[in-house]
């Protein structure tokens, strides 16, 4: 073999790459790439808007969400009450945004534990296989066959009204979605040669799982998180609607929808507006999830 000649090699760009992904423009910052994905931009703007409103509402609104003003009950939208007032004379818009505070905070908090445990269990099952895989698969299959709302309602009744019912339920069953995703991904990534090479280098399992596999699983899991959060929000609202969720007078979209129902014929917006708020959140999170998936697909 001729040891001295090193032929200059042409830069990459395989035939396939040229037409599956399109030529990837190098050097463009992540931000500019993200700005080119409409769903990502729209979803983030929608979320930013509601987050800003929820944070700033004490300073934006002259009204208190819980103080009753029975003299001005069930007013139609006007200059002083943009979305009118409810049956107890409280400003609807103010309550709507305070409700976003409660509901969105619970939504995020309820997902933290299941997100972490789900990914961890899924990765262990996917990487090591064996008994842990059997147990995780058994649990996921069982819980999937079980009606979710039955669990939510039972736990909510057992734990009393309030957010804790949601938290407990999601700690119990919320991880399953993430475990399924991360188990599948881990099992397929495990076949990659970079995992084999990490093993050959003698790196221990925890380093391969956390240092190598996790960064590759996280993006997909976050996309799933976005869609799953919509489910959590709907669960919170449903419990509120059924009267076993957030206790009044704390504003919550579910109880607002339930309260407004009696006045459907005279003040339909009392129920409709919080309903729209839920739909708005659903669309925002879905767009964001879609956009993120798109972004990560393009970069890798």
């Amino acid at each position, binding site marked *: *073999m*001729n040891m001295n000649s*090193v032929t*200059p*090699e*042409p830069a990459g760009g395989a035939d396939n790459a040229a037409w599956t992904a399109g030529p*990837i423009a190098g050097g463009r910052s992540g931000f500019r790439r993200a700005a080119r994905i409409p769903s990502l931009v729209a979803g983030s703007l929608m979320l930013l808007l509601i987050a800003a409103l929820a944070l700033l509402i004490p300073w934006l609104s002259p009204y208190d969400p819980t103080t009753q003003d029975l003299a001005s009950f069930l007013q139609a939208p006007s200059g002083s009450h943009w979305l009118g007032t409810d049956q107890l004379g409280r400003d609807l818009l103010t309550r709507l945004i305070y409700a976003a505070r409660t509901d969105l905070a619970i939504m995020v908090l309820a997902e933290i534990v299941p997100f972490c445990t789900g990914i961890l269990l899924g990765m262990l099952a996917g990487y090591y296989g064996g008994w842990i895989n059997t147990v995780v698969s058994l649990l996921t299959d069982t819980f999937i066959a079980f009606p979710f709302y039955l669990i939510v309602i039972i736990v909510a009744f057992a734990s009393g009204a309030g957010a804790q019912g949601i938290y407990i339920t999601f700690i119990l069953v919320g991880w399953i979605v993430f475990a399924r995703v991360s188990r599948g991904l881990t099992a397929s990534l495990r076949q990659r040669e*970079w995992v084999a090479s990490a093993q*050959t*280098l003698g790196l221990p399992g925890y380093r391969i799982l956390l240092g190598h596999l996790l960064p590759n699983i996280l993006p997909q899991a976050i996309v799933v998180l976005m869609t799953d959060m919509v489910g959590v929000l709907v669960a919170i609202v449903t419990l509120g609607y059924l009267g076993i969720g957030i206790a009044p007078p704390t504003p919550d979209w579910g109880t607002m929808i339930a309260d407004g129902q009696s006045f459907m014929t005279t003040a339909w917006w009392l129920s409709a507006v919080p309903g729209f708020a839920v739909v708005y959140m659903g669309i925002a999170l879905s767009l964001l999830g879609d956009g993120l998936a798109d972004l990560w697909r393009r970069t890798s």
Partner: protein
Amino acid sequence: MSTNLSIENLTVRYGGFTALGGVSLEVPAGSTLGLVGESGSGKSTLARTVAGLIVPDAGVLALGGQPLAARRTRAQRKQIQMVFQNPDASLNPRHSVRRILSEALRFHRVTTDRASTERRCRELLELVRLDGGALDRYPREFSGGQRQRIAIARALSVEPELLIADEPTSALDVSVQRSVLDLLGNIKAQLNLTVLFISHDLGVIHAVSDTVAVMRQGVLVETKPNGEFFAGPDTAYGRELLAAVPRMPAAAPN
């Protein structure tokens, strides 16, 4: 430093399927064994078993006279490194080249502080003829051949004694293949490595190996020194393989 590898009666079964049926091989210190065979012949299984990724059902592996147990020690892991076939899949897409090269350095305490790790990473890149600027970049920014060089640098980071190359150039263009083979040859001589080189391409095997071993359906069919094998294999299968290689038209006499 160089060390010989001896493989004795190595057997690997998957369920009822015998992937390796009692393979025995000797790779002398500092030599290159070219292992050739078609898909399903068990050559990759042999490589992965030697690398410690598959635990054999029977047989003994020894490196430099020291037997390798099913659970290898950290030091034993360090001795045997591997370069894989697919440059698209051999580097973690979310790790920078610095992290790819330094991870094992730090873990095996080849280097102990940040400055020496950095220095060693640059040396490794130099060894595979890449420039230091590559450290902060990610695998997708490199061509197939460059990625394979990075993979070679990673394998060399822990100063192994045996290097297993499993079809390291099969996914590369011919011109790039040549440069990667040249590089491997240089490094082997420079570091005095023992090499187990696997390929289905007889041209590559001819170019790199001292001894040729032919595998078929999990069994070693024949082992012969390079020159003798290409002059005339002992077995019908060896001849069949050789005859199947498409030939270039003979060059016109100058």
